Structure formats: C-alpha cells, structure tokens
C-alpha cells in the first residue's frame, strides 16, 4: 500500500509538470546548430558557427551574399569600379545606426577594414585582403578601396564575416556582446546552450523584418537533434541533420526536408611529397580506385554531388570533371604496376572526427584494398589532425572537407599540407583570375585551374558536402544552399 502511494505521488508530480511543449509563437524561430561558436566576433575567429549566427543578421558588410550566391549591396547602396579595375567607390546608406544607437559612417568602414588587414592582429582571414592597398573615406557617405592589382573577388570578400563592419567604440566587447547594424541585435548567450537575438529597432528596414526573436540552440549529438525536432523543441535545423534520419522526416507532414549544397569540397587528401605519391601515376590510380557513388551512398545516405576537381558546382564557372577518372579498379591496378607497385603498398589514412571522414575511411579502405593498397585507419581528434596533418604534414592520406568558398587558391600556396609540386603554376593562374575583370574571361581561367588540378590528381576529389536541413513545413525563407556560412533571417517568416 505504501509503495502504491509513493508511485501515485510520483506520477502526480510528473503530471503536474506535464504542460505540453509550448507552441512556437509566430514571431519566434528556434534554430538548431551542431557546434557552439567559441566567440561571436567573426573578425577574430574562423569558426563557421559564428557566421551562421551573426552574418547578415547581426553584423553586415558593405555587400552581402544572397541565397542564390549572388552579391548584393548591404551597407553600401551601390558601388562603381574605375575603368582600370583598381578603385572601388562605395556609396553608403545614410541614417544607419548601430544597435547601441550610435551612427554609422564611412569612418567605420575605414576602421573595420584597416583592422581586418592589420598584420599585427591575429586575424585568421587576413590573406583575403591581400589585394587591398588602401581604404579611404572622402566623405561620410562614401568609402573607396584602392587595390594593388585588379581583384574581381573584392565584392565577395566584402560580404563575408571577416569583413563585417564594426564600430570602434564597441569592438572590444564584440567577442561576447557583438554590436552591429543588422536587422537583429544581440540579446544573450547562455554558454553551452543557446544564443538569442531580438529584432533591432535601429534597423533601417525594420518594417520588412517579420521575426521578433530568434534562438540558436547547440545540439552536438545526432540522436538528440532528431529528437529535438520531433519533440517540437526546434523549428529548424538548417545544416547537419543526420542523413540516416531524412527518410523519417520525409514521411512526416509537419516537416520540410531540404537537400542543398554547401561550399564543402570533400576530398581524400594526398601527401604529394611522400613516396609513392610523388608519382603522378600512383595518384591517378588512387582516383580511379575510389568509387564516389559508393561513398556517397554508404556515408551520406546518397546525398551529396560527386565532384571531379576542387570547385563548387554552385559556381557559374564549374565544369563537370568526374569523367576524368571514372571508377576503374583494373586500370588503377595497371597504373600501379606500371609505377612499380604490382602488389600495392601500405599506407595510413588519418581520419578527423566528422562522420564523413570516419565512415568514409572505412569505405575507402575497402575500395583501396581491391587494387592492392592496404590502408591502416587512424582516427584523430581535431587538435591532433591540425597538428599532425595540417601543421607538420606528417601523413599519407586523410579525408577532409574544405568548407571555405573559392578555396581553390590553396593549391597555389607554398608549404600547404598537400605538398603539391605544381603550386607555382596554380598560384600564377589564381593571380591571373584575380586580376581579370571580364567575368567570362575570368571563368575561363577558373576552368583551367579546375582542369589542371584534376589532371595532376593532386587529391581524390570525392563529393560536395550537402546541406541537409529539416524545418517546419510552414516556415518560409531559409536558405536551400549555403553559398556562404549564414542563416540569413532577413526574409524568414511563418506562413
């Protein structure tokens, strides 16, 4: 009898808390993310989690990247380029205010960009500003950027988080309390759990913004992500829903599934300086041995576009080079024999933590075994990967997704972790592309680069990392693709 009473009391206690999960109010949206940002200032840290929260929402650049990847004006109303391509003149919006009420002017542009270029600062993205000679403010509503050489990517560079326009007055606290000019202002950050933004009354187009409040919650565990969506704790998970769970969400009418593309080229990276990979035939054999479709099916449940070079299929200059090395184990074996390895060889395959690498490693090891290459799998945590692979180049093969947009320029770098021997040639091509103002000519050079990387088989180019998203069926305006890391909420509303 006593036990029964206790049980009844316990049930009553549970029931008294059993208020059903609060229905999302129509002016709030709750988004989930896998990783928590370390800080909220994109000008001091490269973490994409920062950009996914603040870019286009809290902080703005002179320009912005839109859902389809095109570059539009943001803090600049418009801009003109001098005929020689060296001077960009930006006409700025007037009457713009920061979230703390202070006015924005061209002085802030000069301050922000000079700070971003400052060699003494520990700014991870400084290389982006390599072409800029000087930034000036002829009057409060005009900013000019003078280049050392023509640099056609400038409007794009000005749109990303690294180029966010900040106020000198508040910049010191931007890591934990960012102040910008965007449609949403910082409300609070409960470390480890969530960041909250609220609509900014200071925003110049505030009547167009339909959301009053947005919450970004951090859920690292894939099972918990699925449960949080099903339980109604989240309205959207815009990037990184586990691929295995997609079938379940597709059947559920409450949700919309969106499979888009990120800028993440996922590759089997090769240490080109290490024997036997210094031999082009061996690298080509690797490319022929790997079956991209089997990897996409096995690792990503079939989501992800195959690629044949290091270039995003979203870009207008993209050419499909997957046919250069079709899956052909017999030809791979013949090439290996020709290179003096008729019985294959042994390699280590170092794997960072993401699923595409850990699961992908197993699939690739099985495929390499079929042509005689024995791959020993070595799981590493991120810190070890950055140290051993990226910094010390102590590896044979590794799997990694390069998530920056337009990151083909890495192939031109000296001393990058691939140890690519053709880097000087690629660097020259990248510079030619940088300097080319005519878009068609420029795309031609970008295609040359794609072909060169494929022919040199620098790495095995596998697939473009998909943007696997799930959101409430009546939520409108989130990005399908991810041309740049951002969850732009400017046009998001409930139907």
């Amino acid at each position, binding site marked *: 009898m006593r036990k029964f009473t206790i049980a009844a009391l316990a049930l009553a206690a549970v029931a008294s*808390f059993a208020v059903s999960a609060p229905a999302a109010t129509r002016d709030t949206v709750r988004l989930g993310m896998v990783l928590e940002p370390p800080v909220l200032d994109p000008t001091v840290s490269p973490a994409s989690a920062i950009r996914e929260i603040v870019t286009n929402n809290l902080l703005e650049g002179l320009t912005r990247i839109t859902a389809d990847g095109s570059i539009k004006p943001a803090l600049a109303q418009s801009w003109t380029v001098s005929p020689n391509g060296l001077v960009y003149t930006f006409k700025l919006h007037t009457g713009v205010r920061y979230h703390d009420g202070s006015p924005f002017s061209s002085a802030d542009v000069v301050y922000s960009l000079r700070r971003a270029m400052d060699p003494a600062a520990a700014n991870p993205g400084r290389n982006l500003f390599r072409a800029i000679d000087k930034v000036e403010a002829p009057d409060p509503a005009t900013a000019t950027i003078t280049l050392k050489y023509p640099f056609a990517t400038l409007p794009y560079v000005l749109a990303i988080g690294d180029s966010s326009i900040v106020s000198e007055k508040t910049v010191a606290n931007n890591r934990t309390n960012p102040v910008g000019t965007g449609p949403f202002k910082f409300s609070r950050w*409960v470390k480890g759990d969530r960041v909250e933004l609220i609509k900014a009354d200071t925003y110049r187009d505030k009547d167009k913004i339909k959301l009053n409040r947005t919450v970004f919650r951090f859920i690292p*565990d894939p099972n918990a992500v699925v449960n949080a969506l099903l339980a109604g704790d989240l309205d959207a998970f815009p990037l990184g829903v586990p691929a295995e769970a997609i079938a379940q969400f597709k059947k559920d009418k409450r949700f919309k599934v969106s499979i888009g593309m990120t800028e993440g080229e996922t590759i089997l990276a090769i240490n080109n300086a290490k024997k036997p990979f210094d031999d082009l035939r061996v690298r080509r054999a690797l490319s022929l041995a790997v079956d991209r479709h089997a990897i996409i099916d096995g690792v990503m449940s079939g989501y992800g576009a195959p690629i044949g070079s290091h270039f995003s299929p979203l870009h207008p200059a993209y050419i499909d080079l997957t046919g250069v090395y079709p899956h052909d184990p017999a030809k791979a074996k013949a090439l290996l024999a020709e290179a003096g390895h008729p019985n294959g060889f042994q390699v280590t395959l170092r794997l960072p933590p993401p699923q595409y690498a850990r699961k992908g490693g197993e699939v690739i090891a099985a495929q390499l075994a079929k042509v005689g290459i024995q791959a020993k799998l070595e799981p590493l945590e991120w*810190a070890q990967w950055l140290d051993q692979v990226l910094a010390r180049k102590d590896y044979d093969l590794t799997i990694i997704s390069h998530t920056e947009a337009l990151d083909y320029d890495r192939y031109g770098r000296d001393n990058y972790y691939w140890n690519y021997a053709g880097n000087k040639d690629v660097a020259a091509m990248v510079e030619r592309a940088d300097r080319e103002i005519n878009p068609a000519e420029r795309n031609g050079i970008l295609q040359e680069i794609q072909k060169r990387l494929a022919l040199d088989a620098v790495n095995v180019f596998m697939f473009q990392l998909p943007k696997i998203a799930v959101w409430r069926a009546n939520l409108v305006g989130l990005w399908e693709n991810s041309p740049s890391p951002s969850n732009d909420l400017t046009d998001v509303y409930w139907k």
Partner: protein
Amino acid sequence: MSAVIAQRLFAFLATLLATSLVVFLVLEVLPGDSAQIMLGVDAEPDAVAALREKLGLNRPAAERYLTWLAGFMTGDLGDSYTYSVPVIELIVDRIAITIPLAVMAMVLTIAIALTTGVFAAAHHNRPGDWGVMLGAQIGIAMPNFWFGILLVLFFAVTLGWFSAGGFPGWEDDPLDAFKALILPAVSLALVQSAILARVTRSAVLDVLREDYIRTARAKGLSKRAALWGHGLRNAMIPVVTVMGLQFAFLLSGTIIIENVFYLPGLGRLIFQAISQRDLIVVKDVVMLMVIKVVVINFLVDLLYVAIDPRLKTAT
C-alpha cells in the same frame, strides 16, 4: 581534535599540489597547439605565432606552471582561450546545472535504493527479494544513456510532456529549469539506485544475522521493529560509503547523459575544453573536481561518526 584537522588540512594541500603538477605535466605532453586550433585550417603561420605570444604559450613551462598555481591560489582562474571570458564564469554557469542535477539524481537514488534494498532484505529469499534483485540487475546492466533515450522518446517525442533536452536557465522560469532536469535525473538515478539497492540489501542482511538483532527479537520486538530500531543504523556505514562515491561521480558532470539531453554541464565543458585544447579550463576544472572529491570524502567521514559514535574515539 585540532591535530586531526591540521593533519587533514596538510593531506588536502599535498593532494592538491601533487594533482596540479600531474595535471600540468599531462597537458604539456598532449599534442596540439591551442593557437592553431583557435585560428583554424587556413590561418597564416604568423597569425598563429602572434596568438601564441598573446596567450603566453611561448614562456617556459616552469614559469607558466607557477603563474597558474599562484593565480589558482589567489582565486584568479584565468581566462578561457576559446571563449575569452573568465574561467570562473564558465564554471559557475555549468555548476548551476550540474549541482542541482546531481542532487536531484542523488535524492531519487537514495529514496529508491533504501526502500527497495531494505524491502528486499526483509523479504530475503522470497518473491519480493527476487523481484527487486531482478530489477536491480537490469538497472545495472542497462546503460543510462539508453534509458535516457527511451525516456526522451516516450515523454518528449510521443507524449510531448517534456522538452527533448536543453536547459532554459534558472533566471527566467525556475520551474521550467527544474522540469528540464527531471528526465536526466531519472536516467541517472535508475542505474545508481540499482547499485545502491544491492549494497543496501546485503548490508541489511549482514546486520540481520548479528547477535544484537537476535537479542532484540528474543526480548519480544517484531521483526520490523528490530530492523528499523536496531538494524538500519548499523547497516548504514557501507551504504554511506557508496553514496559518497556516487555523489562525487554525479558532481563531476556526466558527459554521456549531458550529451543525450544536450545539457551544458560540467562534463561537457571539460570534454569541449580538452578537444579544443582550452588547457586553462581543463586545468582549473580538474583541480576543482579534486577539491570536491576531497571535501566529499571528509563529509562522509563526518557522517560515519554521526552514524557510529564509537568512531569518534577511534580516530
């Protein structure tokens, strides 16, 4: 008595000093560069070097050790490399979850374990005993995260009574915050109480065989009265010992349950700090954990004395 306290204090400080040295040395040999991790894959080498300088990572190890130790002694735990906020703020945020969760789980554990354990002992070798032991066996065998997932699927996904996880914070609505900890506390308590119930049962059984229980029965007390009046208190020493260990474990933050319910507790903080090489956070949190274990052990010793006054003279 004061000699005893002095002796304990000395042991406490020696433990802390030894631990601090071990923690520091272990983190010294850990591969990975904090500055490189913060700036990421595409950082220029000179930017990484500038950050290393700023964080003071280039100074000699002995100097860094002494600076850290001196800071710790004076209550200055330093700033987190990753979050750029004082470590103490991070820890305070996290223990606002971990301590209430540990207390809730422990209260549940004690309530379940003592009632079922004593019940099983009183029904020794009868169906009630078998039932409890079978339940305890299942509880021990079942991983708590799996039980946590089942609870989420049933109470959050199917019934919608609870959130699937997360923690809203105490400042807005304490009731909501309390509610967010119920399912995690139940998941933790299930396994812990299974262990504690078994300990309680065998401790009570041992006591029931003692002469003084037979004497109590002989002078006419009912079995129940003999058990509650004479048996229970004597059976408590091993039970309290295990309780102390369990509470120390729960207070360290339970990384797996924190992951299932995505609670930003102490376990997740230290896990993140290790993987991001936020070494200052790792060092500080480990030291706090050591302090906490030593304090709990001390409290358990005090409880022994309260339970069995004979121990007072023994020390």
